């Protein structure tokens, strides 16, 4: 096949099917709906199942059920629907069920401007569900990356046995680029679940080391364990033992911490001699890259940094970068959410300037271009 002009949302579906998606449950919501529509059309052709549920709460619940049944499952939504999913996201984290949630960010709060782009769910992704929990999230900035990052989301979701959120924004979801999906290189292979022991009696799916994810065989295959959102023992039965509770909560975090370096990915350009670095993700990073390239033409020593793994935030790298520059500019379509992570990461003598995009429009390259010039001339 040759290159085809496709949408970010479409690329997510192609990537997910490539990654072995077999179940999609969702509820229509702009600007994510195309993902559901395409899954409805294409999943039966690969032996998969699509179902439109009555709301987003049941959509993620059905995905957890399907994943527990042994199949790769995904749902897609936007801010308001993502809020409805939060309780069950926590459940999936606690019960250690692999599920992919695509959140195509739009303006809020509430219904906001349903068709307008935004990046104001950044913190909801991390902290939306209740309780102490880790979170992994990837944010593509191109149509091709929508494909590769959803595959990577499935990979990590299986490896850590937990939820991974693919974080898009309306611009990335709806823009079209020509890509040849059959010839995308370096598509990661997803590990199969298991192997599981032949002796099924008394199998303990949650008996794993302090930095590993649970190993859950498909339900209804002879392993008669229990799955619960309660604090549980190695067999999955509720316990209120303080030591076991502490061990479990630590392990849920440790299993992500242990692979943080491997999970972390970012796109870094022109940073070697940079005096100022622009940090942004998703569609805004496209504007940043354009601005940085234009500034470079004028010999402005400006760098570009784009977290692809937005959670865990690539703090270590940002800290390193902050040692060599006086200024960091963060551009994001919100009042400032990722900027909090940047500020938390940097060394003392580095200044941070925030470009807030709260008009329901993509931050344009000229805004970033001008801000860099202002910061440098100060």
């Amino acid at each position, binding site marked *: 096949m040759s290159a085809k002009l496709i949408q970010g949302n479409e690329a997510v579906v192609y990537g997910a099917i490539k990654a072995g998606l*077999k*179940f999609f*449950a969702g509820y229509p919501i702009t600007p994510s709906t195309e993902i559901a529509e395409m899954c409805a059309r294409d999943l*039966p*052709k690969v*032996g*998969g*199942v699509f*179902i439109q*549920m*009555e*709301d987003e*709460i*049941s*959509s993620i*619940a*059905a*995905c*957890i*059920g*399907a*994943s*527990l*049944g*042994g*199949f790769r*499952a995904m749902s897609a939504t936007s801010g308001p629907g993502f809020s409805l999913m939060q*309780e*069950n996201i926590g*459940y999936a984290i606690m019960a250690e069920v692999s599920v992919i949630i695509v959140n195509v960010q739009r303006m809020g709060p509430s219904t906001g401007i349903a068709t307008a782009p935004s990046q104001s769910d950044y913190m909801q992704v991390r902290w939306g569900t209740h309780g102490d929990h880790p979170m992994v999230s990837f944010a593509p900035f191109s149509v091709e990356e929508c494909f590769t990052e959803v595959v990577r989301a499935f990979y990590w979701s299986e490896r850590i046995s937990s939820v991974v959120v693919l974080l898009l924004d309306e611009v990335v979801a709806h823009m079209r680029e020509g890509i040849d999906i059959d010839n995308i290189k370096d598509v990661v292979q997803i590990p199969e679940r298991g192997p599981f022991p032949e002796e*099924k009696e008394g199998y303990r799916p949650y008996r794993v080391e302090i930095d590993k994810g649970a190993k859950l065989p*498909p*339900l*209804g*295959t*002879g*392993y*008669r*364990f*229990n*799955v*619960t*959102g*309660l604090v549980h023992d190695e067999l999955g*039965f*509720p316990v209120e033992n303080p030591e076991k509770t502490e061990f479990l909560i630590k392990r849920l975090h440790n299993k992500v911490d242990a692979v943080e370096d491997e999970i972390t990915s970012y796109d870094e350009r022109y940073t070697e001699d940079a005096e100022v670095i622009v940090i942004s993700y998703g569609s805004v990073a496209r504007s940043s890259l354009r601005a940085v390239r234009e500034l470079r033409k004028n010999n402005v020593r400006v760098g570009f940094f784009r977290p692809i793994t937005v959670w865990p935030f690539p703090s270590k790298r940002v800290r390193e970068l902050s040692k060599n520059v006086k200024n960091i500019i963060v551009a994001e379509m919100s009042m400032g959410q990722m900027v909090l992570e940047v500020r938390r990461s940097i060394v003392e003598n580095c200044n941070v300037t925030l470009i807030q995009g709260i008009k329901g429009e993509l931050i344009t390259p000229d805004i970033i271009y001008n801000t860099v010039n202002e910061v440098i001339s100060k």
Partner: protein
Amino acid sequence: MIGELVKRYLRMDRLPHMWCPGCGHGIALGALLRAFDRVKIDKDRTVILSGIGCASRVVGYLDFSTVHTTHGRALAFATGLRLVRDDVKVIVIMGDGDALAIGGNHFIHACRRNIDITAIVLNNQIYGMTGGQSSPTTPQSMLSTTTPYGNFARAFDFCNLAIGAGATYVARATTYHVSLMTELYASAIKHHGFSFVETFTQCPVNYGRRNKFPDPASMLKYMKDISVPFKVAQNMGSDELQGKIVIGELIKEKEDVELNKVVRERIMKFRGGAQ
């Protein structure tokens, strides 16, 4: 007999159970074990899910693949599981608040889809685990901790709701009618399509105590007195049926539109017969 079934189907190391003395849930669980025996259920190919509440704690005791889900959402979890796993029997056990208040929307849509799941609701007309608040099935004027002046609202008729929403097997029993309950559970499990059995059960501690039922036996006797078998009810007027509950099989339809079957057929069509 029941001792044997207990050993066969329950996780002995999880007992004793956490239900209060006089609670009807154990009676319902006993009937369920007898029904399992009657249909010769395959422990390794059956998944039992529940929501949150006293009734939902039953999954912890059953020696199957079990999933204790979030409050009200068990049917949605079960729907996803059943759609990808045509080879397993799926049974969902819920309470009245679980299935009808927070989970009401999922309940009616599961009925509508007619997916092959057996839903058993243990209806004790109260939120037992949180200490006796009113539920959607608490009868009007009855007392609970959140209706201290009597329940203003009317109670849901669970079975009529299920029938209206399109469930293809709907039945009702009470913990007084143990052999009927066993029979209904067995028929529901055998039914292909969405099957629903409402079980009236007693909560002496959080419902009876506040509503002039001096002991569990008086609650069982009350359930006996208000129950009318389905066939008898057919010849009774609505005035006569006021304050009564109809027990037995209320509806049992043919099984031709079960959701999973339709989904499989579509997949088969695309794959030229192979799955």
